């Protein structure tokens, strides 16, 4: 069996006395589309933050392509080929749309901290950024400040930024949250298009998106994964049913 793209073993996280993630083992293969679902407060975003070293885990390991990520900073993890988006739109609002994407290209194209290149005169940067803009259908908005885009456009831009660096493991945190149906469809298509051939891990609430996109699904409830498997299997799982139904009932009260 080949090395999984991402492998979590015994991952735990506590804030004070509250244990939010209570031991997660998960293995995600190369080019797999994996969705993580679960009721509110299950710890999905925390899990994302643990993987990308935004938080340090209390216990357990995260391996990317078999390499332990312990002690690495987010930017180091990113350089190893893992890229993520955020639940709350996280772009550079004062920069133009084009600049946003170009910034995301800089490291991957090897410009690093250089001060002897002028970004404007680099054809590869301009063309690369425009190609991405084309993919996410924002070429027309090229020179607008990113903060003035519509919400859906900003989410699309964020996906563009996330994939621009060429990472082969893409993590998206609720890419369609707060969107109308048409917008959701648009983003779903976009994700399908831009993550072709890559490993995708996403947190999502919208079940139609999840079932439309994911190869496998993990269900996270109270910091534990109660089921992992193909969409149809997960849908049929009794514990999942119970967890979701229970959560739904709770929410009604």
């Amino acid at each position, binding site marked *: 069996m080949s090395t999984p793209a991402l492998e979590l073993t015994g991952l735990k996280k506590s804030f004070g006395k509250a244990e939010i993630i209570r031991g997660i083992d998960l293995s995600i293969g190369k080019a797999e589309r994996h969705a993580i679902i679960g009721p509110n407060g299950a710890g999905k975003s925390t899990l994302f933050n643990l993987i990308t070293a935004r938080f340090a885990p209390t216990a357990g390991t995260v391996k990317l392509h078999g390499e332990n990520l312990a002690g690495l900073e*987010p930017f180091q993890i990113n350089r190893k080929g893992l890229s993520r988006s955020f639940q709350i739109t996280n772009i550079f609002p004062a*920069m133009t749309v084009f600049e946003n994407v170009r910034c995301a290209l800089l490291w991957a194209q090897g410009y*690093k901290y250089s001060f002897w290149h002028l970004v404007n005169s680099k054809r590869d940067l301009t063309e690369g950024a425009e190609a991405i803009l084309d993919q996410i259908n924002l070429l*027309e908005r090229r020179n607008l400040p990113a903060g003035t885009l519509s919400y859906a456009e900003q989410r699309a831009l964020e996906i563009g930024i996330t994939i621009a660096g060429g990472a082969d493991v893409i993590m998206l945190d609720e890419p369609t949250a707060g969107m109308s149906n048409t917008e959701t469809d648009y983003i779903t298509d976009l994700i399908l298009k831009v993550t072709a051939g890559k490993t995708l891990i996403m947190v999502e609430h919208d079940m139609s998106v999840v079932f439309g996109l994911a190869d496998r699904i993990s269900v996270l409830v109270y910091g534990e994964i109660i089921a992992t498997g193909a969409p149809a299997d997960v849908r049929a799982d009794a514990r999942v049913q119970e967890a979701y139904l229970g959560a739904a009932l709770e929410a009604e009260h």
Partner: protein
Amino acid sequence: MTVSDPKHDVPEGAREQDQITTDPAKASERMRAGSMTLTLAPWVIATVVLVFLPMFFTNNSALTIMNQMSITIVFALAYNMLLGQGGMLSFGHAVYAGVGGFACMHIMNMSDFFETIPLVILPVFGGLFGMGLAMIVGSFSTRSAGTVFAMISLGVGELIAACSVIIVAFFGGEEGISGDRTYAQPFFGVEFLQQIEVYYLTIAWLVISAALMYLWSRTPVGRMANAVRDNPERAQFLGYSARWVRYYSFIASGFFAGVAGGLFAINYEILTEENLNTASSGVILLVTFLGGVGFFFGPIIGAIAFTLLQTVLSLSTELWAFYAGTLFVATVMFFPGGLAGLIMMHVPAFKLGKASGLVMPYIKTLLPAAIGLLGLAALVEMTFHFRHAATGDVEMTLFWTTFNSHEILPWIIAGAVTVIGLGIAKTTAPALKEAWNEANTAGGAS
């Protein structure tokens, strides 16, 4: 809820901007086509103006003041690499310029070495020493931005300023270190005896440094400085360490601050404690913010305005610092974009070709307002004279008029000018606002 639809949430100004660039494709074409001429033109014009300025201002004091302006511009631009482009607020940046300057003075005094180098390259050494210090301090201060960075910069600034009177061997104590620039190797026969020669040296460095700093902002690390300023977290997930990006900006800023220090050394041939102290650090913050941190040319305008306030206004009134302070506070409160922001506010109107519609309303409002403010200033000056002048000394001169500050008439006149001036401005202000809205709206009458 932190996320809402920005379309419904954009502040007034941004929406206007939105409206005028509704055709982005067109705008981008415009930008691409004209990019070379657009970016080069101001530089060429500025250089030509600088070269020919001494023809109009022949006396040495004007040259001295222009030199001072140039040095402040270089320093303020360097400072803005931190504040404006990197989002780092420093309360102790004078030490990098100061240490660079002191190093240059020591080089001037090492006559064996100094004789072998032309004076024109001396600022490079200043830059290197400023950079060296920035490398040391930055290694621990740039780990985080925000308050921690600001406070470390304050502490380090105070420490080095305090060292200036304690470590006499390097800083020369209270009297500082002085030298003579003319001992350098003549540069194509020029010995820099005269102020005019120093002027050309200074502006050459001004143009070179400003250009380099501008180009820096167009390099990958310069772009990422902006990214880290706006959103350090996102930048981290693009593969960049926010800390290293800040560190590189800090070093570059230290270098150009050191160049400014070197220019100072050449101009004044003396460096003292005042080049390092917190007051100087405060002034450069003031200058930069006054000019506007959001635009590359902001600090340039700030440096010119402040130098004029400091050297020219202080010739006419003791209260110059009071006016400068008022101007500064008013800028922060009403025009956080600074003077540059004020100027750039008009760009949309120019692009729409409607700027001419603003001229008359401006004259109708701003002229009376200016007169009213002058009247107010007169009242302030008279109050000050009344309170603090010698008792027998009742005569004062204001706006080329000499009068008795203890008589009622001048007070009535100044008061009336103030009330009428500001009154007219107030009544015409709505018309200006209307004209402003009209000038910034696409389509319509034009």
